[in-house]
């Protein structure tokens, strides 16, 4: 039953190409550059983490990928086509779960299907998505009755129910307590492995990036440019104490200029 959302077909994800993407904000008449000529190629089904200091423009980059904003210069393509507007094949999970407080968990998860007029035919997927994130018993609960971790799971289900080809994760675990976070990191990996989507994760947590991603892109301070790319070929499931990961962590911190704390 879960197969409706999570198939074992590994090539269900879409590709993502960023070509020389730069972006400026207009701050009281003065241009504020946030992204500086970022080029990136993400393959089908890849899990890529964007790592950088707070306020470096990571979230802006994700908004561009989602199609919520258009870049000042450069272009973004998925499957060879330019990204011009939001599309349900590219779903964002934001740092804040932002569930609609007037809808139950079930109707929140149903949002995407309802918006596209698929609710009648694909109703069963909602139950599947809730089961996938372990919220089966909470279908009729309202968001204010959920804990932070449960709300974020509901937000994840709301994304997954649309069978995304590219899942954009904007620090989705940033507001959770550290124990819930560790659990959810493991769950994210197994979801990604089963569903086969391409995942683009923004985080400022080095350990999280290395635990989840096959490739870590280190971004600089604003305006962000790519400082380093670190491939991480350790097999899943990964272990936090893995000496290879610890070594990679040292490398990443060095790129961020934080190795003095090692």
């Amino acid at each position: 039953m879960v197969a409706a959302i999570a198939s074992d077909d590994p090539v269900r994800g879409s590709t993502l190409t960023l070509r020389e993407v730069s972006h400026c904000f207009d701050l009281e008449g003065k241009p504020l550059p946030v992204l500086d000529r970022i080029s990136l190629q993400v393959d089908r089904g890849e899990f890529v983490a964007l790592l950088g200091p707070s306020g470096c423009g990571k979230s802006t980059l994700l908004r561009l990928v989602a199609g919520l904003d258009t870049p000042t210069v450069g272009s973004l393509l998925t499957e060879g086509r330019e990204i011009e507007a939001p599309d349900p094949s590219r779903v964002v999970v934001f740092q804040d779960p932002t569930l609609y407080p007037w809808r139950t968990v079930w109707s929140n998860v149903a949002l995407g299907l309802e918006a596209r007029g698929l609710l009648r035919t694909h109703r069963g997927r909602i139950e599947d998505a809730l089961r996938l994130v372990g919220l089966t018993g909470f279908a009729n609960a309202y968001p204010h009755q959920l804990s932070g971790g449960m709300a974020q799971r509901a937000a994840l289900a709301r994304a997954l129910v649309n069978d995304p080809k590219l899942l954009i994760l904007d620090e989705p675990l940033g507001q959770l307590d550290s124990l819930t976070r560790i659990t959810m990191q493991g769950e994210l990996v197994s979801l990604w492995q089963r569903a086969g989507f391409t995942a683009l994760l923004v985080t400022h947590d080095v350990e999280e990036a290395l635990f989840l991603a096959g490739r870590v892109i280190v971004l600089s301070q604003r305006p962000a440019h790519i400082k380093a790319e670190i491939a991480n070929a350790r097999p899943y499931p990964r272990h936090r104490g893995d000496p290879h990961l610890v070594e990679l962590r040292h490398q990443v911190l060095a790129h961020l200029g934080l190795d003095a704390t090692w």
Partner: protein
Amino acid sequence: MSSVVDEVPRPSEKPGFGFFAGSTTRSLLGGLSVAAAWSMVAALTAFWPDKPESDWAYTGSLAAACGALAVAIALGALAGVRFSIFERLQRLSPWLFALALFFAAWEVVTAKLGLLPLPFFPPPQAIVEVVVEDWVRLAEGILASARLLATGYFLGAAVGFVVGVAIGWSRLAGYWIHPVLRFIGPLPATAWLPLAFFIFPSSFSASIFLIALATGFPVAVLTWSGVAGVNSAYYDIARTLGATQRFLVLKVAIPAAMPHVFVGLFMGLGNSFAVLVVAEMLGVKAGLGWYLQWAQGWAAYANMYAALLLMAFLCSGLITLLFRLRDRLLSWQKGLVRW
């Protein structure tokens, strides 16, 4: 759900000892003392003769009504030992007791001692007399007022809601409608009265326009502020999930704005009462407002009090109804907001 509740042993089902028995006894004693207070009102009305030269026809009826109320309360209090549906009575008993004292005092200073000047301060039996003898005209008045109020209120609320959503959503609508709202909105609706009675074919349609205006303005302003204040992340979420503009308005903006809309509906309802009464006093030849005016013209102060009382029931009943509607529609707010 009720089945679950039914399985819990009721405190009142095991009288005899403990805390619960104590509270049952207390509620019984409370209920009986309220009944005693109303019996006292009944006895006082019946056995203390009215001031000699007065001729109140309904003194006996009032005494009988108070006595009946006392019996009903006593039975309710006794039944409360067995049935918890009468628990509400216990909560009301301090108020019922205070009301008995108020009625006794009112009866004494008017009908019995004649301390307050007539006809401005009639005794309670005079009001009973009005309600019994003039109920046809009072009922007609209530119906006429309700019809006028309902038509005007629904019209105004609907237009105000649509206008509010339009200016909250569309830049163009905001540009053109907002200044009009800012300029004309603060004008009290009653200021339009002379003009409205002149322009509209009937005083009824003129009053509907005025009530709609008084209702529509706060509804429009609060709907607009609700729509404009919607968390932009709600729109981002819906857009990435493939929502159309129509979906964003109907399924995101409007539900998110509903708490504000209800504040507007409450304000509009209050405004509409004021305009209703003024319109009925100045132009419309029916309704409770008109009845008030008529009663004052004939110095029939008892009729006026009766009409005022009915008006209070009507207005507070409608407010309660709106609260019920809000609690039903905005049940998701439970635990978030309380007002």
